[in-house]
């Protein structure tokens, strides 16, 4: 499940950080550093860009504390900022141009070292590689829905579309992941809409 769920802070830390208390700001950074980095890393294919974005998220979080009204969870607020930052990055012409150039230059070559390689977990490594091969939208949708627990309506809204967009992207992501993870085991059954049993 979302790593953000285990990362909330006592309310007074946020209040103190809002008044500029450096120790409270640092506590926020340390509490959310890992969930923010992990989420950015899952949504953005480039590790270096994800790290930069994670730092940008904290700049924004610490500069915008006055806007957190305490009605929802602070962790949810930080997560929303992280998701928005990553989506803004993925929508940027710079990123799209870079993806296009990389696709040309590195066709079939793995350029990033997934986290599971560090953990020496073969199955997770396969999944991370497969995840990295998804299109940006499909990857964002499958992660936000299946891991972070966003609803299709929420994801559709974030993507500037509807719940249907999110549903179709989730189906596409699952089909593609299954193809990538079980290249020999994927049956045509259950994938097409109109095959006979």
């Amino acid at each position, binding site marked *: 499940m979302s790593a953000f769920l285990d990362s909330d802070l006592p309310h007074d830390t946020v209040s103190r950080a809002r008044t500029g208390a450096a120790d409270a700001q640092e506590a926020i950074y340390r509490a959310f550093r890992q969930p923010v980095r992990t989420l950015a890393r899952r949504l953005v294919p480039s590790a270096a860009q994800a790290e930069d974005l994670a*730092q940008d998220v904290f*700049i924004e979080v610490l500069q915008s504390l006055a806007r957190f009204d305490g009605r929802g969870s602070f962790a949810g607020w930080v997560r929303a900022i992280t998701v928005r930052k990553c989506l803004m990055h993925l929508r940027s012409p710079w990123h799209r141009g870079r993806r296009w150039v990389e696709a040309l230059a590195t066709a079939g070559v793995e350029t990033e070292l997934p*986290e599971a390689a560090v953990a020496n977990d073969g199955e997770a490594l396969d999944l991370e590689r497969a995840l990295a091969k998804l299109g940006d939208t499909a990857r964002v949708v499958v*992660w936000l829905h299946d891991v972070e627990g966003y609803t299709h309506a929420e994801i559709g809204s974030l993507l500037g579309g509807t719940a249907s967009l999110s549903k179709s992207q989730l*189906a596409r992501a699952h089909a593609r992941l299954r193809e990538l993870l079980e290249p020999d085991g994927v049956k045509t059954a259950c994938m097409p809409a109109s095959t006979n*049993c």
Partner: protein
Amino acid sequence: MHARIDELLSLRDGATVDARVRAHVDQCGDCAAALAGTKSLRERLRALPPAPALAADGWAELQGRLAVQAGRRRRLAQVAPFAAAASVAALALFATLRGFDAPSHPAAGPEPLVVLDDESVEELRARSQALDELLAAMPQRPAVARAGTSVPIETLEAEVQWLDHQLSLAGAEPDAAVPGTERLWRDRVEVMDSLVRLRYVEAQHVAL
């Protein structure tokens, strides 16, 4: 007919699914296996390891960036009125030297900006929208721009983008209930005004 993957995902998530699809999945081994596969994939995604720890702590770097950002915003607040005044002066100078008649186009020679302290969020938002429209009505930027105007224009555009992002974060809340929203709109009006003026000066360079 087998269940489609979107139907299997709906079943997995407890969403509404046609009863016939549900009955089919209960009876069909392939579909039941595919449904189990979607559940298994979700569990595997959730079990992926977190991003590995970095050697660098990051907090010191973040503090440095926060200080730089604070300085940048302070400088921008100080410089924006002068940039606007300089743009107007440059415009007046060009008009005088070239015997230039200010065209009736709305992008030409906007009135000097006065942002009153007691303007409401609604008034500031309307002003901001008017400046957006003014900017949209201006000609495309030249392919080869002068560094003297291009760099400040890009800086101001980045600032507008940042403010828009801040406003989008506050957007779900009623304006009056969100502290700082008025300040953001005020900043946006000021930055947009400077941007429009600089774009106007740049457009005049191209035209001359």
